[in-house]
């Protein structure tokens, strides 16, 4: 873990316990989750007991204690999406990827999240893939979306393999999902 980024997040926030939630947001945005080492540093800098840092990080839904997949499929389960069949989308994603919400596929490519509302209720059911939104989604379109991401990733790996065979490059780093 690169601690220099954490340092810049904590800069100027010494002994400011009320900044805890904002700091956790910044750490989440930077690292994609809240690493244990980060919690220890936050505890020291802000002057908040470690148990309280952990408590906040595990209480609020916005914070993840484990890294997510490279592609996060977020299924909105707001009321409006629910009555328009968001359950179908969740079933589709879970069956196709073989994981449950909060889990990551073995290859590290996908994770599924459920969210209470994305606030785009008039376009339900809606999902997001990282920061792209897909309104009025159907199971069939979701299937195609996941397939197309897999295909792209496969091509990228093959491309990396080709260049590895062509000239000496670091194949392992090119093919790793993150």
């Amino acid at each position, binding site marked *: 873990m690169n601690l220099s980024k954490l340092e810049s997040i904590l800069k100027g926030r010494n002994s400011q*316990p009320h900044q805890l*939630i904002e700091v956790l947001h910044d750490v989440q945005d930077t690292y994609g989750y809240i690493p244990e080492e980060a919690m220890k540093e936050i505890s020291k800098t802000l002057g908040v007991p470690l148990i309280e840092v952990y408590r906040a990080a595990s209480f*609020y839904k916005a*914070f993840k204690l484990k890294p997510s997949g490279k592609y996060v499929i977020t299924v909105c389960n707001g*009321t409006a999406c629910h009555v328009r069949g968001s359950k179908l989308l969740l079933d589709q994603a879970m069956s196709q990827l073989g994981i449950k919400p909060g889990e990551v596929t073995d290859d590290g490519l996908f994770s599924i999240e459920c969210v*209470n*509302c994305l606030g785009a209720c008039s376009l339900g059911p809606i999902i997001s893939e990282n920061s792209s939104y897909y309104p009025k989604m*159907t199971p069939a379109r979701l*299937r195609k979306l996941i397939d197309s991401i897999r295909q792209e990733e496969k091509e990228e790996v093959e491309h990396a393999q080709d260049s590895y065979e062509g000239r000496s490059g670091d194949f392992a780093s090119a093919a790793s999902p993150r």
Partner: protein
Amino acid sequence: MHKIATREDLETSRRQLLLDRKKTDKTIILCGDTACKAAHSQEVIDAINKELLMQEMDATVQLRVTGCHGFCEQGPVAVIEPGNIFYCRITPEDAHDIVTKTLRDGEIIERLLYTDPVSGERIQTEAEIPFYKAQDRQLLSKNKEVNPCSIEDYIAIGGYTALAKVIDNLSPEEIIHEIKVSGLRGRGGGGFPTGRKWLECYEAPGDEKYVICNADEGDPGAYMDRCVLEGNPYLVLEGMMIGAYAVGATKGYVYVRNEYPLAVKHARLAVQQARKCGLLGEDILGSSFSFDVDVARGGGAFVCGESTALMASLEGKVGEPRPKDVHTVVDGLWHKPTTLNNVETWANVPFIILNGASWFASKGTKGSKGTKILALTGRIKNTGLVEVAMGTPIRHIVFDIGGGAINGKAIKAVQTGGPSGGCLPVDKFDLPVDFDVLYEAGSMVGSGGMVVMDETSCMVDVAKYFLTFLQDESCGLCAPCRLGIDRMLEIITDITEGRGTLEQIDLLEDLADTVTQTSLCGLGKTAANPVLSTLRYFREEYEAHIINKECPAGVCKALIEYSIDPEKCTGCGRCKRACIHDAISGEKKEPHVINPELCQKCGICRSECEFEAIQVK
């Protein structure tokens, strides 16, 4: 934007900005809200921008990207002024025609006009569209006039003149009196009289006081606050400034949901711009009034919609509520007197100050004044954000504005007020949107979510949906909420899975009563509402699940079977390809069959079938 140090500066800036605006003779207003962005409005905006440059029309046409216009179903949408021409479902390929035909030659592009689903007619102007015509858009109509990243736009349309008015002419007591007389009640769900709240905070002892804007819109199926804060953050800030001046606060916070990245961005930008031109900071508009605002992001906890939990979160703690025997207006954020209002409540304040309390009170009913923004969603034709005068009957909203049911299904209920609200059946649709009337009927106005349900929704499943939500979101601090919701969900699950008994309904009602009476905070106290309201109005559905072991709407998986009607099946194979459980088999052009052993009853096949051949029994 240069410094605005006095009221005269504000007036001079406004005049100058209006003159600048007159330099362009046409304006195209495009919606850049989250919902329209989801419908790829950014590509449309880029294409139109490019086209304007190519046609060398960028000096004569103003392109204004704004917040939500309301009619999200039809997005991306655009309005062209003068003429009020309304185009919908625009694609980047339409940019050339819009610029050359409409903006240059004044021609109407028929294919981009809205078609009324009832009459089949194409409608040219926004004002004539039934969805808009039937509304009273006091707050939402401003979205169209303001680029949410431009404080200049807000000042040009008279922004901050309400603030100038109170600083120059009104004492805190007079402002509070005005708000009291207007009859404004909290738009976040509680419906508490705003003037009374302000007065108590004003009278509370202490020099250090706070105002907070609650933008942690946690109700699933509601997005009014997102659109107001995203579309016109300046208006919300102005409301907060007036409130702070009235109660004597020097510091404010906007607590905004992190799931709304655009709202966070726009709120932060609005604060920065206001600071830069001196509208936030020391000695505002030449007076001795000093005030500043910070934007804090919520952590995605529904309970933080509760005022004391929100304040705990702002203090950097876990969002748990505390007993409110001493109100937050006396003992709030950091134990200081605090006035917390919702986004829409703050947004109403500048209009009340400018137009007068009697103007506001002239709209609405005896106990509920002004207008209310509603998020009209679910199984209806026109979904979107709607603003109507309080007292408007639900029927008018669902059928006249919402356009009625989709796919010829029968509308069964409307869910109002989110997880704290309830479901009202069609025979209650003549009830007005009124805090007290809806409360009496077992639901609530709440923050304004209105989710329409038709015969495809099972009301027991809806109750289960909300209980699952609340079980997940209960902070766990008090036992009645933590354990009571768990037990209620257990019973409802039994019912939806065919194990329910009639005695369990009595137990459910008993539990609901205990949770309501004994929970610590407002969320626990209202957690049983979805159960109680569905039991009150849809008891026969519960009984069908218990006695006949059937789910009339065909939703509850344990009580239904999927099969394929061989008469209707054309053997196209779509369902077979779509089935993620390999439960469907059949030769091409021959009727297919579902293997009940493998079928997981997810319903994906039914969503794929174009011939309505998949049956649920």
